[in-house]
């Protein structure tokens, strides 16, 4: 320890002798790392798996079951009510839930000013499939229509000022509902079950309503809905259930490869039957897309973050080259002193240890500077690309890996010069 | 060739040199071989540097080949140095990274000679010092004496009127020192004025004239030096030194 402190003292002395080159090295290294940190944060978060133990078992089935003829068409990104009914008519999946989202206005009493809310209209398996935690109450017993809502914890607190509000009544878009459950704190980022139109980048909804009730009350999807025949999309209760109004997402849980194979077969049989019945004029194009591939399937992989990732990596490389260049210059300038130490009996190991002290000191200063620059970078990116702003937070795992990267880079930047200094010909340097 | 009247130099900054020059009075005629002697720190090197226009002086006059040096711009001084003066240093001061050829060629480049002319002159100079075969060597591959001969070749390649040598044999053993001295005498006989700083009384005696400097002042004896012993020279052929 005493020895290490001595090494640190020597490092500090050599910095004080030539503060500008050292400051520039630190500046360049922390610029590179800071910019890299900022982007790595988004990249890591956006590509995170919100359900790592389960995401390979969740699938979104797509098929071209639409009332128009289209050869070589991609199946629509959302399903119709009747599509979902047909895809649900099997026991193969361990769980299945159709869903969509809508906007609404929530009040305790009709006289209150309204609270704008995002609604998810779905079926009971949704909560099991995505492991949504409950604080109070329980999920609806079945998928049928009922005037019961499930609130997020935040919404319950905002509306009632407390969370234990099971059984209380509220008004959503002029209709009365009973609260059947309140969720515990729950976030899922990215929200892969809702990747249509980049919605996976936004927060979870405020309130949950049974899907059937949503259709009865004519809630139209707020993200994507398409009609493939003459239909009045304002009449979801009737036209919405029978005609080709597509707005539903549908997820099935298939735990084993056998289940997955069976469900694929089920889809094949289903579309073949429909074709025979004349209800599937297009070419058959069935897809069973896993949750991990859903963003790619919708072709929404955030090209800008990727492009920026590529560029920041190059920038880090430039800064590394540059910093090692600067630090090489510093070491060459110090070579006489190093040779003198060697002549006085310091072994290469001692010199290497001195270099390690340099590395630690540099890593320490650089991490602080890089985190500061990284933080400003994130703020700038949040301002310029607000769609990704939920993906900008640091957790310990990320922070520690960032620190490890800093240490690694400091080591790289110091390694070559120190090797060169300690292995340089001793007598030649002293003679010069 | 060199006329110095009342020349003084005062160091105002903290440099290694602590002595200044006081009222120096020195005339050197063309073709002379002058040895500049004196104890360490007496101002020999400073005088040589002033003569070589490497350092400025504070007062007095310095006429080099009839031209006053005072008030000349950096560019004019550099050109003057390049054309009229050749330097030989105790530490040789060859550029390590350059080959012998490149080293000798350097002042010719500043002179603006074309490539063919440079090549001719460099080869001629290398021949004069007997290192023609080693033109592509680097200084580190040569002995001290050879390096000094390269430095001499560099100094004479541009055919300067004056050669300023600062202890040219200071770093050499006696055999090599003698060879270098012989070379210098040869050059002097070819018509080049030489001013040489030396510690060695033997070498000083070999010069045509001795000037002593003590505490920044020329000693009295030197001021009344008799007529130059060696006014006229016939152009003699170059001498190869082994």
């Amino acid at each position, binding site marked *: 320890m005493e020895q290490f402190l001595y090494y640190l003292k020597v490092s500090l002395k050599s910095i004080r002798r030539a503060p500008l080159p050292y400051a520039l090295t630190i500046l360049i290294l922390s610029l590179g790392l800071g910019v890299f940190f900022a982007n790595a944060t988004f990249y890591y978060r956006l590509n995170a798996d919100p359900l790592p133990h389960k995401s390979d078992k969740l699938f979104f089935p797509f098929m071209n079951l639409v009332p128009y003829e289209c050869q070589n068409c991609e199946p629509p990104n959302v399903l119709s009510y009747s599509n979902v009914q047909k895809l649900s008519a099997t026991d193969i999946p361990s769980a299945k839930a159709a869903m969509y989202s809508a906007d609404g206005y929530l009040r305790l009493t009709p006289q209150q000013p309204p609270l704008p809310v995002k609604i998810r209209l779905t079926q009971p398996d949704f909560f099991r499939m995505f492991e949504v935690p409950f604080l109070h109450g329980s999920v609806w017993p079945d998928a049928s229509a009922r005037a019961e809502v499930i609130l997020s914890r935040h919404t319950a607190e905002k509306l009632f000022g407390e969370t234990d509000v099971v059984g209380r009544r509220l008004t959503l878009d002029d209709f009365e509902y009973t609260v059947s459950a309140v969720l515990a704190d729950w976030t899922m980022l990215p929200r892969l079950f809702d990747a249509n139109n980049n919605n996976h980048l936004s927060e979870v909804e405020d309130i949950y309503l049974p899907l059937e009730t949503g259709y009865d009350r004519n809630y139209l999807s707020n993200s994507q809905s398409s009609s493939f025949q003459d239909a009045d999309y304002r009449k979801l209760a009737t036209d919405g259930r029978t005609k080709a109004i597509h707005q539903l997402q549908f997820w099935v849980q298939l735990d084993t490869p056998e289940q997955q194979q069976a469900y694929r077969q089920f889809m094949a049989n289903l579309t073949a039957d429909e074709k025979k019945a004349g209800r599937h004029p297009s070419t058959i194009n069935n897809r069973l897309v896993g949750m991990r591939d859903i963003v790619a399937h919708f072709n929404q992989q955030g090209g*800008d973050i990727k492009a920026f990732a590529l560029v920041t990596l190059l*920038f880090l490389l*430039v800064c590394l080259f540059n910093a090692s260049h*600067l630090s*090489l210059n510093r070491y060459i300038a110090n070579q006489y002193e190093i040779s003198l130490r060697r002549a006085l009996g310091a072994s290469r190991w001692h010199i290497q240890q001195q270099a390690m002290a340099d590395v630690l000191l540099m890593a320490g200063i650089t991490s602080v500077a890089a985190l500061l620059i990284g933080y400003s970078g994130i703020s700038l990116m949040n301002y310029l690309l607000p769609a990704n702003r939920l993906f900008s937070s640091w957790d310990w795992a990320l922070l520690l890996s960032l620190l490890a990267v800093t240490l690694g880079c400091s080591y790289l930047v110091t390694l070559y010069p120190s090797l060169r200094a300690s292995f340089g010909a001793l007598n030649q340097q002293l003679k010069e | 060739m060199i006329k110095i009247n009342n020349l003084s130099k005062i160091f105002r900054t903290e440099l290694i040199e602590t002595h200044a020059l006081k009222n120096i009075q020195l005339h050197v005629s063309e073709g002379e071989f002058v040895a500049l002697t004196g104890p360490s720190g007496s101002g020999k090197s400073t005088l040589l540097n002033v003569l070589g226009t490497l350092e400025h002086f504070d007062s007095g006059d310095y006429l080099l080949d009839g031209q006053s040096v005072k008030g000349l711009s950096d560019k004019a001084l*550099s050109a003057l140095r390049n054309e009229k003066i050749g330097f030989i240093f105790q530490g040789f001061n060859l550029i390590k990274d350059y080959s012998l050829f490149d080293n000798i060629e350097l002042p010719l*480049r500043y002179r603006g000679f074309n490539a063919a002319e440079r090549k001719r002159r460099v080869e001629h100079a290398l021949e004069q010092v007997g290192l023609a075969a080693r033109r592509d060597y680097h200084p580190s591959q040569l002995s001290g004496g050879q390096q000094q001969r390269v430095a001499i070749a560099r100094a004479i390649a541009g055919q300067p009127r004056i050669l300023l040598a600062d202890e040219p044999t200071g770093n050499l053993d006696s055999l090599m020192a003698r060879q270098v001295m012989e070379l210098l005498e040869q050059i002097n006989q070819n018509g080049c004025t030489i001013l040489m700083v030396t510690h060695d009384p033997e070498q000083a005696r070999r010069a045509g004239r001795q000037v002593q400097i003590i505490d920044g002042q020329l000693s009295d004896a030197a001021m009344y030096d008799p007529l130059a012993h060696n006014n006229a020279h016939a152009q003699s052929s170059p001498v190869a030194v082994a």
Partner: protein
Amino acid sequence: MISLHLILKSMLRRKVVTSLLLVQLALTLALLSNSSLLALQTWNQLSQPTGLDLDNILYVSLKPTSKNLQEYPAFADLLERQLAAVRQMPGVAAVSFTNQSPLMEGGSNGNVNDENNRENNTQSVPQYTVSPDFLKVLQLDVLEGEIPQKIEAWDGESTVPVVLTKSLAERVFPGKSAIGQLTNGGPVAAVIEDFYGQRNAERVMYNRLQIAQIYGVAWGYGIILRVEPGQAQHIRSQIPDVLKTADSNIEIFSVRTMDEQLHRMFRNEFGLATLLAVLSGLMLLVSMISSYSNAHFNALKRQQEIGIKRALGASKHSILLEMLTENWCTTAAGAGVGIVAAWLLNQALALVISIPALPVWLPLSALLMLMCCVTLATWYPATIATRVSPATATKTL
């Protein structure tokens, strides 16, 4: 006077340092060219013609907060009250309702085709339901036909006439007048000037209008108005209160000028281009630092060499030129590699975002800029280097 040959030799001798410098310069040039390209592209997108008076058209996006108000006839009454209130504001030249704003990524859209020739189908055409004053708000001239003056209701029986923008009319009915022709949405009543509808459409100038009631307000609706020049900010601050006075049961999502709509539409491109520009700036800074420190270090390391050269007759000027030339050579060599790197980066970026091919002049101007920065950064240490005293530098220790 300066030997390129000697400079190259000295660069080759410092292999590691020089190659570090080269790689970095090459990457800088690559990045600088591509981010300028992206910035240029965004700027072009932002300054493309929209057919709209960007500064003097305001769009209010809003929605009734009660179910009752969201449905006819209560909604029609609400609209009437709102339009009347806005129309009375001083500085408002024209006002209309609309189901959606121009200058959007996507929105309500659908197919348009010639009912007699369904093969020729145009997909994703924005479909506007507006009041007749919509054309006054956007200041669009009627090129052919007449704009219906009656706001049609959607009774499911009668067809509602459509109004097409010029380029769409030419696309659907090539080589003939569109007036009176039947589209899948109804007969064509008029053809109007082009304006920028939705970015995701087949062509941004394709638009279909119907003078009709707003079909549904699940996604909200809009009130669009043209203001007298210079009044935009004032009216924008007043309009929420005016609308709330007409009926307080509404949520106002935003009030924007068309210029803001345009910028929002290219927000991602703008963001990325800005980020890359910031990064390019940082890269230039890093290059300057490295040039500076390299020259500074060189000057220190080669004090003796410079002193010797000075003694041999090199003027300060030629020493300065020599150091600058050395840096220029490195920059030029780095740039040579950089032009290839710029092209490669361009290809790589094209895989993830839409970026045009790199024009030749761009890396060349990036090179010029890099040269300027490098020269600037080298100047000071090079000047210091020329101040080396030849007398001191040539002194033997």
